[in-house]
């Protein structure tokens, strides 16, 4: 049995599950809770579960679609399904999803870091520094990026969850009441708005050619279910603790409630103080993981679309565009507008473009079968 050869030309289903997990988590565990709690209030937890199930279904559709075109990514088969122009539009749409998420994460991350760690440093400096490191990672081959993601999955996430769990000390269970939401519509709406938290699962459309030979579709769907299960647990942990510590009213009036929650934790008799710094230290690698993967995906999409052999020039080409994009989101209103736009773009991609692709692909195959007699 051979393992770990030169460039990775395949990945195991569990590796795909880890990649999906780390790509989805990203910055949103700190950036998104406020808007979700504001929308769904006490039902935010239920919205997280609804969102998880919804986007898991979307992922399953993507897996079915990708399985129909083995050895190809959406960049190659979209033009065959939608025609040359339609296919190009779908590819641009797909790439735009990553681009918009990346610039929003950079913006949010820059704000948080300057707010909590360097109040006198301009966010541009913070963004630029992380952008350089992400670009360094994104110009590596996929095998290297996958190893980094696994490394971070074990190291950064364990520290992040450990630090976050200390906030249970301040949890007031009565703050979680009522458990059942009054406003069902808001909860369902909240479920849709959790797209920002789960976004990133679209990467399966690019990575399936590396996995499909390793496992059947059924097993892959089950393994991906485990990945989404972990995501739901993690997001529930974040939302429930925020509400339990701050109450719904307290949380929706704060920009970054998760950091206020952790800041309020005191561990007397220990060496540890200002836990929000520890959380941020663990959160930066988590954000980096998502950003580096998305930047790689963007470079890969461009490379495949223009039929080139190397994604690196594209990553380097995209670096200044990402930087300018993240700087252009210069206030919270613009950011929230971009956030909403990206959400609808993402939802439309998952629930219109992908099912449509599947239907067209079935129709085209049936037509081809009929033509053959």
């Amino acid at each position, binding site marked *: *049995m*051979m*393992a*770990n*050869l*030169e460039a990775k030309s395949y990945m*195991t289903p*569990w*590796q795909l599950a*880890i990649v999906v997990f780390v790509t989805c988590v990203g910055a949103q565990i700190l950036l998104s809770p406020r808007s979700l709690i504001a929308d769904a209030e006490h039902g935010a937890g239920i919205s997280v579960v609804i969102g998880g199930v919804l986007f898991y279904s979307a992922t399953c559709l993507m897996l079915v679609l990708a399985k129909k075109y083995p050895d190809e990514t959406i960049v190659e088969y979209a033009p065959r399904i939608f025609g040359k122009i339609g296919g190009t539009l779908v590819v641009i749409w797909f790439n735009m999803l990553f681009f918009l998420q990346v610039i929003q994460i950079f913006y949010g991350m820059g704000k948080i*870091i300057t707010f909590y*760690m*360097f109040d006198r*440093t301009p966010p541009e*400096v*913070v963004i630029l*520094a*992380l952008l350089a*490191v992400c670009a*360094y*990672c994104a110009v*590596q081959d996929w*095998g*290297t990026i*996958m*190893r*980094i993601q*696994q*490394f*971070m*999955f*074990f*190291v950064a996430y364990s520290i992040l969850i450990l630090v976050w769990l200390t906030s249970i000390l301040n949890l007031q269970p009565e703050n979680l009441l009522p458990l059942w939401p009054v406003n069902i519509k808001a909860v369902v709406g909240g479920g849709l708005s959790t797209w920002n938290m789960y976004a990133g699962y679209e990467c399966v459309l690019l990575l399936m050619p590396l996995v499909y030979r390793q496992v059947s579709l059924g097993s892959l769907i089950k393994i991906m279910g485990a990945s989404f299960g972990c995501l739901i647990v993690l997001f529930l942990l974040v939302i429930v603790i925020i509400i339990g510590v701050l109450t719904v009213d307290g949380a929706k009036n704060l920009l970054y409630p998760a950091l206020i929650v952790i800041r309020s934790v005191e561990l007397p008799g220990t*060496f540890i*103080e*200002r836990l929000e*710094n*520890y959380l941020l*230290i663990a959160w*930066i*690698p988590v954000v*980096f993981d998502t950003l580096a993967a998305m930047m790689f995906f963007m470079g890969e999409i461009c490379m495949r679309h223009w039929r080139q052999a190397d994604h690196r020039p594209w990553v380097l080409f995209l670096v200044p565009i990402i930087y300018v994009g993240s700087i252009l989101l210069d206030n919270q209103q613009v950011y929230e507008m971009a956030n909403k736009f990206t959400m609808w773009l993402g939802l439309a991609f998952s629930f219109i473009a992908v099912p449509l692709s599947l239907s067209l692909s079935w129709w085209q195959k049936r037509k081809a079968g009929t033509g053959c007699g």
Partner: protein
Amino acid sequence: MKKIKCIQKLSKHLPEASLEMSKKKLAQLQLITTQSTEFSEEIGQIIAQLRSVAAPSSEPFIFTSELQENEQLLRVVFRDCSDIEFRIFDAAGKKALLVYLKGMADTSNLERNVLKPLMSYTAQETENTASLLHLLTDMKLVAENVLGAASVTILASAKAAIDAVMTGNALLMIDGLAEVASIAVIKYVKREISAPYNEYALQGSDEAFNEAIMDNIALIRRRTRDTNLKVHIMKIGERTNTAIAVLYVANLVKPGLVEEVERRIGLIKKDKLLDSASIDQYLVDHPWSPFPQTQMTERPDKMLAALYEGRVGIIVDGTPVEILVPCTYNVLMQAPDDYTMAPIIASLIRFSRNAAAFLAVYLPAIYVAVVSYHPGMLPTTMAISIAELRSRTPFPSFLEAIMMEILLELIQEAIIRLPAKLTGAASMIGAFIIGNTVVQAGLINPLLVVVIATTAISSYSMPSYNFSMALRWTRVPMLILASMLGLYGVILGVLAITIHLCSLRSFGESYLGGMFNVDLLADWKDSVVRLPAKLLTRRPKEFGAQDQIRIGDNDGQPRS
């Protein structure tokens, strides 16, 4: 006068004795002499041309059956080499020549096994002389029937013969034969097998490699009776022609790995190769990286253990530190003592070693970041105490840390370079300066001294010296990042180093990536921790050994 008239010219009676005729004949003789000289030169040139046509371009000349001519050619090659001995002797009436390098060849062996058998026939004219004369018509017959040496090789190539002499072999040539015999009589002054200098094991073997390649191979062979352990010897270095042995276990090594190692060694274009470290730089994929991408060892037991995990060993003649590939972070963090102590203790030591590696790189940077940018992360009493200490020193924390680093590096360098008798004094002065004087002088605050001392001790605890040097190197960029961006900079530095280490590959294996690869989590049993020996039934998957099971029912055959 009359008497004078009686004397007549000889030419009057013998016209051919006339002066004109003599001059004419002399001129003719001179012409013939000149022509003969020219003719001789032309013949010489023709012979040289013919010889150069016969000799292949890679050969300096070809041997002929004329011993005198062969000797002359060899003397030209070895001119001004006073340590080359040309010993001419008589073997059953035929001239023979023995050429060897004084100091590299065992002369008593030559006397016993070459000179004595050949010359004894000349001394006593017996009927055996006739049979020897028959044997002397073919070098192969001489080697098979006359020479008593253990290893004799018949050579036709002049280049191979010259190489053989330079390696310490003796060359036997017999008049009438165009072939030469290379007799293995290598014997030179060398260091005895001693204890390892840098990889001492508390309960392990005390044998270490020395500078002789054959001794080093023997140290490996002596520990195993496995015929699957293969040794390929190559010669590299245009001038030094250094012998390099590639060792591997044929039914374990990952397919293609040995070929790749040999390909890279074959691509080395260099005039001299004096040590394994210079070869190492030709083998690695990222020569600019500070991290070692090959493992160096002076322990034969360690090399053998690595060979049985599917890795490849490279032994270089003239150096006691040999190379193992592929090399990953995991193998660099393993020490021979890990296997001689209780598994639970070995696991704890491995954990502390990993923690030490982290501290060796990041501790000064974390100190600078926390003190300069995030003092709020410290308990209030400690923050006040640090502020008080820092108020006594004039420099910012970054500058203090850099000064301490420079001081530490200087002391370490001085201790390494000084003669052994002076290192104790240098250590004491260093300790005194760092521990006491700089603090009393108000240049550095005592907490930083503690931090830097902890860092230094952490880097000393690394099993690989090269890896510890790499950790020392990475401290400085980390300090710069910490001074510019505080803990954010430190985290970015951690990420950059992680990316670099995951992107590094040693013969296809990821340097760090294998550690947390979900496919290779089974390897944790002998990497992050060390399980009891009876649970280590499988080889590390990381190196892709053909037979994953160490002991089993497949008799060492590759598993399909």
